[in-house]
């Protein structure tokens, strides 16, 4: 009998069970509007989680994405007033790219641990987002732009379509290209990669640039959905994105992960928070809940290993008793 790897398929099983229960129990859950809003919510954080999947597979983390999102959003909304939608989108993407590049250069070329570098940019970029417009919100009125966040094509929300397309592209990059192979190899052993002639610095730097671009896309969706860019948006964004990735079974120690599972985990995460909202769970309790979910996802690896160890030991015992 072929052994089913429970770890790999756990997310999708949990999602199916959760949706099944909620469909049966809660009337307001199964309305089209609610499902649409779950998908929109999943997409806005999920797109950043796609980039984060690359980073975590490489064995690093990026804590600065929430601030980066706020900063890119401010720049985008600021440009939109004066220049129109297309230049504004380009400027937003450029902001994400530059932020990612700064992170990448410091981490890869100066060999500073990623989490502490991105902690520095986390605070700096948030401060810049506040400084940009004197801590005021910038309102977006361009209807074509707002459509990106609120519109839908053939019943499917546009953000979710963007999410799926990006996921497909990134999955191909991760699984089918040399670059993707390098990223996965880096997670297993950076030293081995360096010795075998891979330009590890460039690979690492590129991953952080990719993260920046993904964050910029997330920023477009978040800004378009709220119809404004505010400097205090997405305070726990890094936390949500990391939870999605880890929930999707990507190993924290790097080397292993899948884009598909991140997509499923993003939908699962958004569904859970939607359910908590439907049952009027207090925002603080929600955060505590999400914290516990992340802790559980983190320890999943440990639990698996622990049980594998137990099984091995019991097998040894049976062999000895025979």
């Amino acid at each position, binding site marked *: 009998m072929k052994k089913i790897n429970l770890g790999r398929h756990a997310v999708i099983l949990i999602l199916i069970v959760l949706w099944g229960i909620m469909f049966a129990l809660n009337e307001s859950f199964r309305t089209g509007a609610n499902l649409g809003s779950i998908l929109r919510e999943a997409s806005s954080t999920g797109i950043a989680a796609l980039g984060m999947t690359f980073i975590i597979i490489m064995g690093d983390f990026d804590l600065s994405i929430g601030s980066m999102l706020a900063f890119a959003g401010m720049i985008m909304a600021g440009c939109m007033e004066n220049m129109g939608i297309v230049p504004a989108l380009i400027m937003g993407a450029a902001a994400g790219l530059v932020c990612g590049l700064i992170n990448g250069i410091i981490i890869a070329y100066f060999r*500073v641990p990623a989490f502490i570098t991105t*902690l*520095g*940019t986390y605070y700096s970029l948030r*401060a810049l987002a506040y400084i940009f417009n004197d801590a005021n919100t910038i309102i977006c009125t361009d209807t074509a732009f707002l459509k990106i966040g609120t519109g839908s094509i053939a019943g499917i929300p546009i953000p979710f379509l963007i999410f799926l397309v990006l996921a497909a592209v990134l999955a191909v990059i991760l699984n089918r290209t040399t670059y993707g192979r390098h990223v996965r190899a880096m997670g297993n052993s950076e030293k081995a990669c360096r010795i075998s002639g891979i330009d590890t610095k460039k690979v690492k730097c590129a991953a952080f640039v990719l993260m920046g671009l993904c964050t910029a896309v997330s920023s477009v969706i978040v800004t378009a959905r709220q119809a404004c860019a505010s400097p205090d948006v997405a305070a726990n964004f890094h936390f949500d994105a990391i939870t999605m990735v880890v929930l999707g079974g990507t190993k924290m120690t790097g080397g292993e992960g899948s884009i598909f599972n991140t997509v499923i985990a993003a939908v699962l995460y958004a569904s859970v928070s939607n359910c908590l909202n439907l049952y009027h769970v207090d925002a*603080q*309790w929600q955060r505590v809940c999400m*914290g516990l979910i992340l802790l559980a996802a983190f320890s999943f690896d440990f639990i698996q290993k622990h049980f594998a160890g137990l099984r091995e030991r019991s097998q040894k015992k049976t062999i000895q008793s025979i």
Partner: protein
Amino acid sequence: MKQKLSRQSENISLAGVVVVLFIVFTILQPNMMTVFNIKNILVQVSLTAIAAAGMTFAYTAGVFDMSIGSVLALISVVVAKVATTAGVFPAILAAFAIAAAVGILNGLIVTKLGIQAFAATLVSMILIRGIAVLMADGADVPLYSVNAIKFISSGTILGIPFPIILTALVYAVSYFLYYKTEFGMKIRSVGSNADASRISGIRTQRMITAAFILTAVTAVFSSLIKTAQVMFGKATIGEDFALDVMTTVILGGTVITGGKGNLTGTLIASVLIAVIKNGLNINNVNSYYQQLAIGVILIFALIFNGIKTMRNTRQIRREG
């Protein structure tokens, strides 16, 4: 010997930066150089310096604690709640007990579940902040009825503000622990090579847990000072405390990857941070620019630290 020399010269140059900055700020705004303001700065120093001493141990052991800002908030709420109902001493006891529990919890998550320190403390950061807000019930807990608490922030002994005495005490104990005891040596050993330490009989997991406990316990002092300053138990304080403390420790020259700490550097760096904050404040610079300044300083300290480590490894390779 050479290492000790380079550490000394680093400390001296850092102290030089403090003096220069202080002079520059004084030229910009003469009010900087008043006794009142200098006392202000020193109290400000004590806030980060004390927690940074504990964090230096954590860095040395090769871990670090993101949850320290949330611990600050939780302790603040706990102290306010207990002090208003049971008195000051039970409040302080409760604060230390809870901090120790948080440290042990962090340590257990990291060592027993095998989760990276910063990821684990990222989780506990969210959880502890959540508990603090839930305990405070979304409002500040007033402390006006308990005047004794005020002494912690604004009391003086022989004319010296109490927070400064507290800082001196914490650093004296930390120095002793860090440089003179077996415990300090073991912590350093775990940070520089955990595997080798385990093989040579050091209980590495215990050392790491101890480092987390030290960080949380020193955060209690900082929290007490902060709480006494505002006379409220606030669940929202310390949002960027982790940034201040991390910046302080790294700026002080402690090696990020573990094994080598610099307590004197940490102390000088906390003075530097406080002078910058106070100088910008007194010159009416918006607080966002302060946050930006600290963030940029952290990034440059990191780059400097990175260059130093690279140069070291190259030297080691050359010397074989």
